């Protein structure tokens, strides 16, 4: 049973130059204890989607469709109700822990505030919960840490504090937006390990937003690839790397510098993503796709359809045999190839 079910989500921003549809008909679901990865490049709408789920968008944005979290329908929910859900049922971790922590308040004050906003507990109990929270994310001597200010901590420590804060009220859904992008590789490895451990411990559903396919391979169970506001491919993680179906996914895989051989030119996707103000007709990837056919450049755009013999869904007009043949060239090596 899925905990979060998003159906046909459309997020539109009103701008001076006309409406911009940042998320265009996205559907996905994630169950408790599962990690869903959302991959895509800047501007593909992945952050707009997570902010839609959190109800954190400015008033200039309209959200249509359905976001069902357990028994709650989040689209159209009054702000006051959303506010009680945020921080308790749904929590979010942002990319930059420095800008999301209050620089003039101690870590302890901020953690205790988060507890007391959502739970009726005494100051002493809130403090105990804060200490337990810091200990759970592997912060040494948590009691002393309560008195420190964010600037006294390293980037990795700050991100641990953010994760601890997000988990304080035992959320059922955790959205992590690029949680390791601002960190060093060694710290990233620590945080990813922490996320993997937490998934099994807290039994929450995690949506992990990232641009890094390496991070996806490390922690996700399922992956959705987004391009220009739409999901172009959704698959279990092993499937995605073993049998990638969409030409955009191939491009992403082939662009990884770790995959090319020396002397060989790095594969690049020609051009840059389209403007969402005036997206191309038909498949939005068609102008950059080496295999685009006439049908791809005309409406209606291809819709997500399942690939026979797997749990993958893909939105592409190419015939399955071509996709299987071409996709094999971009699959990860080893026994899965």
């Amino acid at each position, binding site marked *: 049973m899925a905990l979060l079910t998003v159906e046909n989500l459309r997020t539109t921003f009103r701008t001076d130059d006309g409406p911009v549809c940042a998320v265009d008909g996205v559907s996905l679901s994630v169950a408790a204890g599962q990690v869903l990865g959302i991959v895509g490049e800047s501007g593909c709408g992945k952050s707009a989607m997570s902010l839609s789920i959190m109800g954190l968008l400015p008033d200039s944005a309209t959200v249509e469709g359905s976001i069902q979290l357990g028994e709650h329908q989040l689209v159209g929910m009054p702000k006051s109700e959303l506010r009680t859900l945020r921080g308790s049922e749904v929590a979010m971790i942002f990319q930059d822990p420095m800008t999301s922590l209050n620089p003039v308040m101690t870590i302890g004050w901020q953690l205790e505030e988060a507890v007391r906003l959502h739970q009726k507990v005494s100051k002493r109990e809130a403090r105990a919960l804060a200490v337990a929270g810091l200990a759970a994310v592997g912060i040494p001597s948590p009691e002393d840490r309560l008195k420190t200010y964010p600037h006294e901590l390293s980037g990795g420590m700050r991100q641990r504090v953010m994760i601890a804060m997000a988990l304080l009220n035992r959320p059922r859904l955790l959205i992590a937006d690029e949680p390791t992008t601002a960190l060093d590789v060694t710290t990233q490895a620590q945080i990813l390990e922490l996320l993997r451990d937490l998934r099994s411990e807290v039994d929450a559903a995690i949506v992990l937003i990232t641009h890094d396919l390496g991070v996806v391979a490390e922690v996700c169970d399922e992956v959705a690839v987004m391009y220009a506001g739409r999901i172009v491919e959704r698959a279990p993680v092993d499937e995605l790397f073993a049998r990638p179906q969409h030409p955009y996914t191939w491009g992403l895989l082939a662009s*990884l510098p770790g995959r090319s051989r020396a002397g060989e*030119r790095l594969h690049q996707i020609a051009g840059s993503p389209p403007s969402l103000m005036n997206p191309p007709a038909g498949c939005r990837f068609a102008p950059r796709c080496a295999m685009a056919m006439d049908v791809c450049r005309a409406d209606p755009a291809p819709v997500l359809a399942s690939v026979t013999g797997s749990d993958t869904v893909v939105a592409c007009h190419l015939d399955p045999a071509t996709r299987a043949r071409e996709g094999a060239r971009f699959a990860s090596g080893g026994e*899965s190839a």
Partner: protein
Amino acid sequence: MSEPILTATGVTIGFPVKRGIIFQREVARVQAVDGVDLTLHQGETLAIVGESGCGKTTLARGLVRLRDIDAGSIAFMGEDITRHRGRALNDFRRQVTMIFQDPIASLDPRMRIGQSMQEPLDIHSIGTPAERKHKVQEAMERVGLNPEHYNRFPHEFSGGQRQRIGIARAIILEPRVIVCDEPVSALDVSVQAQIVNLLEDLQRDLGLSYIVIAHDLDVVRRLADRVQVMYLGRVVEQGAGEQVYNHPRHPYSKALLSARPIADPKLARSRERIVLHGDVPSPSNPPSGCRFHPRCPVAQASCSAHDPQLEVAADGHGWACTYPLAP
């Protein structure tokens, strides 16, 4: 091997630690870069990798003389440029230019990009105004920008295009060496590939030598002929890319390599991985003995007392470790 073009010997760069509000006095110095040697050969790419705070950016700034160095010397084509000033320094800066990480922060938002790219020519008074404009447009074409966009402003470009502007500005003086500080880390993966290819093309066509500062080990693997791994201001391992990546001898190099996320779920689950615990210690108070020993997975008792020095073998592979890993 070809001629060394840029060499640094025992470069040490410190930052003052100050106390007092009105009468600030220096109470200590933090050694951000501590006795680093480096040699860049004609036409090669040398990468410097390490975590944030290891001193790699400070070293890069020292190499292009954007920062004065406290000790050691830097030589460019055999000439000591450590104390150059005025015209001599300007001449050196024509030959050694820099590409920065954040193309937005390094471009003046109110200056047309043509102007930004032309500025180096103006400063060094090269050519007539018409020639300068022509040179800029040539450079734009070379880096894959449309020369007609000469009069546009930086905000009209995407991240990848802005990085191309930064590259055009770096090659406009026809330098011999470009120091690239995290040239692709602010870019999306598909754009990253475009910039990596562009850097490789320029190197081949213009005979450039690069020093690449990066924390992304996959990008480094791709670009670099040789690699130096830095930890807390010192080089802990150096060698050809193949040596360092396939046969790391220093435990820190091995840990860095194993921390990279692998874009292959099966491999990611099956490989053995060293997760380093704790953070990089503060350079103002480095650990005794080997600076890596508090985080080292294979540290022995003697490591807290003995400070190993970098020893380089005849094949160019060197490491600073008392108990190196098996090759």
